[in-house]
Structure formats: structure tokens, C-alpha cells
């Protein structure tokens, strides 16, 4: 053995760990190596202590408690424990994370007193069955009965886009009095009564909704046109009056593309479709396209302009509650024509 190797045997001298060969080699080397001999002489103190069995037992007792937990400090153990801890933390977080479920709502509901079950909406009934109920729900303006008595004429027919007429001198006055035109009497028949029933309910709701400022998305502007002696319709002055027998049309600017309808409230409180037209945004249209609105005697004619964004049949829209709700959010304008 080299000197370095023999020097490593020093640790075994005091504890008696060396074999006979190792011990002899160490001691013989120490006789020839002063430094090794000095080291061995220092080691003799430990050697003498460890010769006592009681001392050995005391040292073993000092080493045993830590031995039981020594595995905790091993890198592999620490890595395993760390991994498990991470897994538990992640698992716990995932487990405790609130999940989007209806369970909390169910719990709250159980804590509340039982409520009467809400009546289910009736399935879409036949129009003949629904009609009385819809009429009862109709919301009418206070002046509706009086106005209905004054309405005598109906105007119907397809509207067509026309070139924008010269702008009126001023905004039309709701109290303008016009006279009825003779050609109104020759106007086509009004839409079927069945369709009118749905319109009554729907437009009544629309009227109520129109009262809320938030529902007025874009203004539905219109101008009154009155037939002159030559038969051409010209704008009515702002302070102009309508007289019985005047023939009137509405020039309406479409704020958005969609379907534009003109309704008239009849004496019974219902609404009848006078004209309907698919419109484009920022275009001017004249309703009705043929004929005119007229009254043979002084009366008030209550009209409703409705613009729905989609170009689709109005009647089909109004047949369901969902469609009613859609209509409520659309552009509606009420127009009263006073024929004096």
C-alpha cells in the first residue's frame, strides 16, 4: 500500500476496525514515518476511550436516533416527498376550485319556503282561441277610444321607394289638420282580421316599450305630404292644417335597413296594416305608395310606424311571444293626424 493508502487506515486504528494485515501495515509504516507515527500517537487518545465498552455504547446511542430519521434527509427521499407534496397541493387546488354547477343554487332554493309553481306558458294556441285574451291585454293610450271613432277610412297597398321630394319647410306638426282625399275610398281592403289581432297585442306592447327612452334606438323621421290640386303630393308646412277630405301620405326616412310598416288603429281599438315595405338604410319612402290617408269628416287618425330590422314577414314575427319581444325593441313611432 502507498503511504496515502496507509494513512487512510488511521481512522480504523482507534475503533479496532482494521484487519490484522491492515493493522500490521499501518504500524510498520508508522515506525518508518514520523508524521504517521505522530498521527498514530494522537489517535491513541481516541483508541483508549473506545476500548471502554460503555463509551462505545454511549456513542452508538448518540448515533442511533438520527439513524432512524436519516432516510428523511436523503436526496431521493426529499425528491419523493417534494413530488408528493406538489401533487397533493395541485390536487387539492383542483379539488377545491369552485366548479360551475347549479348545485349552489339548488341549495339556496331548498332553504327558501316553497313557492307556488309558476304557470307554464300556454302552448302556441290557435289564433281563434288566443284572440280574446290578447284583446284584453291590449294597452291603449287614454285617447284611443275617441280616436278610434274618428277613423273611418283605410288605406292599403304596396309602397314603393320614391325619389326624395324637396324637403319640407319645417317639421310636420302632430296637430296638423288635413282634409280627406277622394281616392282613399278606392283603397284596397285592409289585411285579414286574424293578422290584425296579433298586431294589436304586439304593437300595444311596442307602444308601451316605446315609452322607455332606452328603446328608441334611431329616430324614425317622417314628413307629411298632401295632395295638391294637380294630384301631386307636396310637403305640408309646419303650421299647416289638415282638413277633412285631404289626401295625405307619409314620407319616411329609414334609419336602418329592414321592414317598414304603417298601421292604423281602428274604432275597435285594433290595428290594421295599411302598408308594408322592405327598406334600405338612409332611403326615403312614401307610405302608402298609392292612394292616400283621408277622412271625410273632422277626426283624428292614429297611425303607427314600425321598422323591424329584418326583412321578414311581419305576421310571422308577431305570432309568437318571442317575436313580440323582438318587436318591442324596434323603432316605433305614433302619428296622430287631426282632420279638421
Amino acid at each position: 500500500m502507498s503511504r496515502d493508502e496507509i494513512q487512510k487506515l488511521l481512522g480504523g486504528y482507534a475503533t479496532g476496525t482494521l484487519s490484522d494485515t491492515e493493522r500490521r501495515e499501518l504500524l510498520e509504516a508508522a515506525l518508518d514515518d514520523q508524521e504517521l507515527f505522530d498521527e498514530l500517537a494522537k489517535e491513541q487518545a481516541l483508541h483508549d476511550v473506545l476500548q471502554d465498552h460503555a463509551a462505545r455504547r454511549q456513542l452508538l446511542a448518540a448515533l442511533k436516533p438520527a439513524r432512524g430519521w436519516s432516510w428523511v434527509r436523503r436526496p431521493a427521499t426529499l425528491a419523493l416527498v417534494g413530488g408528493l407534496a406538489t401533487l397533493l397541493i395541485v390536487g387539492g387546488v383542483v379539488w377545491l376550485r369552485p366548479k360551475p354547477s347549479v348545485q349552489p343554487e339548488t341549495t339556496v332554493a331548498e332553504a327558501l319556503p316553497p313557492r307556488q309553481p309558476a304557470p307554464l306558458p300556454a302552448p302556441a294556441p290557435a289564433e281563434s282561441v288566443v284572440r280574446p285574451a290578447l284583446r284584453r291585454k291590449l294597452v291603449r293610450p287614454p285617447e284611443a277610444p275617441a280616436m278610434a271613432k274618428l277613423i273611418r277610412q283605410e288605406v292599403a297597398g304596396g309602397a314603393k321607394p320614391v325619389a326624395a321630394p324637396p324637403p319640407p319647410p319645417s317639421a310636420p306638426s302632430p296637430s296638423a289638420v288635413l282634409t280627406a282625399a277622394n281616392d282613399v275610398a278606392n283603397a284596397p281592403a285592409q289585411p285579414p282580421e286574424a293578422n290584425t289581432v296579433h298586431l294589436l297585442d304586439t304593437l300595444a306592447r311596442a307602444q308601451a316599450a316605446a315609452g322607455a327612452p332606452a328603446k328608441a334606438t334611431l329616430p324614425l323621421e317622417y314628413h307629411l305630404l298632401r295632395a295638391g290640386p294637380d294630384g301631386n303630393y307636396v310637403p305640408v308646412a309646419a303650421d299647416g292644417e289638415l282638413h277633412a277630405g285631404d289626401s295625405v301620405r307619409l314620407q319616411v326616412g329609414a334609419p336602418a335597413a329592414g321592414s317598414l310598416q304603417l298601421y292604423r288603429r281602428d274604432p275597435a281599438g285594433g290595428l290594421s296594416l295599411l302598408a308594408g315595405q322592405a327598406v334600405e338604410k338612409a332611403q326615403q319612402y312614401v307610405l302608402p305608395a298609392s292612394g292616400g290617408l283621408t277622412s271625410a269628416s273632422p277626426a283624428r287618425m292614429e297611425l303607427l310606424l314600425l321598422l323591424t330590422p329584418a326583412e321578414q314577414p311581419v305576421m310571422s314575427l308577431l305570432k309568437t311571444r318571442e317575436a313580440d319581444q323582438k318587436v318591442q325593441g324596434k323603432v316605433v313611432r305614433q302619428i296622430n293626424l287631426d282632420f279638421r
Partner: protein
Amino acid sequence: MQRDEVLRKLRERIVAFAASHISGDFAEDLAQEVLILLHEKYSHVDRVEELVPLSLQIARFKIMSLRRKSLRHGEYTQVSIADIQLPDLEADPATLVERKQMLERLTQAVAQLGDRCRELMRLKLEGKNFGEIQKRMGAQSINTVYTWDFRCRQQLLDLMGGDWEPAKK
């Protein structure tokens, strides 16, 4: 190696070792006293594995006794090495106290060792030799165990202040 040759080498080593702890004259006397004792009392011991540890033990005792007497007399040189009687290590109260103090320091030091050193120390105290320790600790070779033990011994020695025995005043 013959006994005389062993004793001759021992004398040289003891004189040099003692000279680093006591004065030169006392170192020569110390070595002479050790050899006389080996000759008179341990004449039947002739193997180097026994002679060297025995001589180390006697020399260490002589040095410790000399230091104790010097401390009691207040002057190191006032005590002759010849006045130190043949040691009776097991019966000497001062030796027992010093061993007890050393054991306390040793117990505290081993508690601060690393896992490997603690395990190695435990196996050594249980009487395992290096070959058995190699198998128990799964070392690749016995030289690995030698290296581990050498480093652990150095670590333990450092924990005890660089010397197994308390610092001499």
C-alpha cells in the same frame, strides 16, 4: 522485523514525537522510560502490532502525567520524568475524568456528522471491519471505504477542535 529493531525505531519516533510536546531533554528521558518499561514489564511482547500501540499508550500517559504535575507545581521544568511512576491507566482518577470529558465532546461531535459518516461510525463501533462496511454501505471498492473513513475522521476531528483531547493549558 526483530524486536530490537522495532524498539530502536520506536525510540526514534517517541523522541521526535515527545519533542513536539515537551522539551528536548525530557523527550529523551521519556523515550528511555518507555523502552525500559517495555523491556522490564512487557518483555514477552515482540510483535510490532503490539509493541507500537503499547509504546504509544505508555508515552501518552507519561506526557499527560508530566503535564499534570507541572501544572500542580506551577513550573513545567520542576518535575523530573523519573518521578512519574508506572501508569495504571484503568485506576488513575485523572485519566478517567479526562476520558469522560473526551467522551462527552465526542458524543456531541458525532451528532453533527453527515449521514454517511454517522452510518460509517456506527458500523465501526459495532465492530465491523472495512470489508464488512463495504458490503453494508454498498461501496464499489474497499478503497472507497478507506476514503470515506479518512474524510469522516477528519470531519470529526475538526468538530472537536483539531484534537481528540482537550486543549492543554
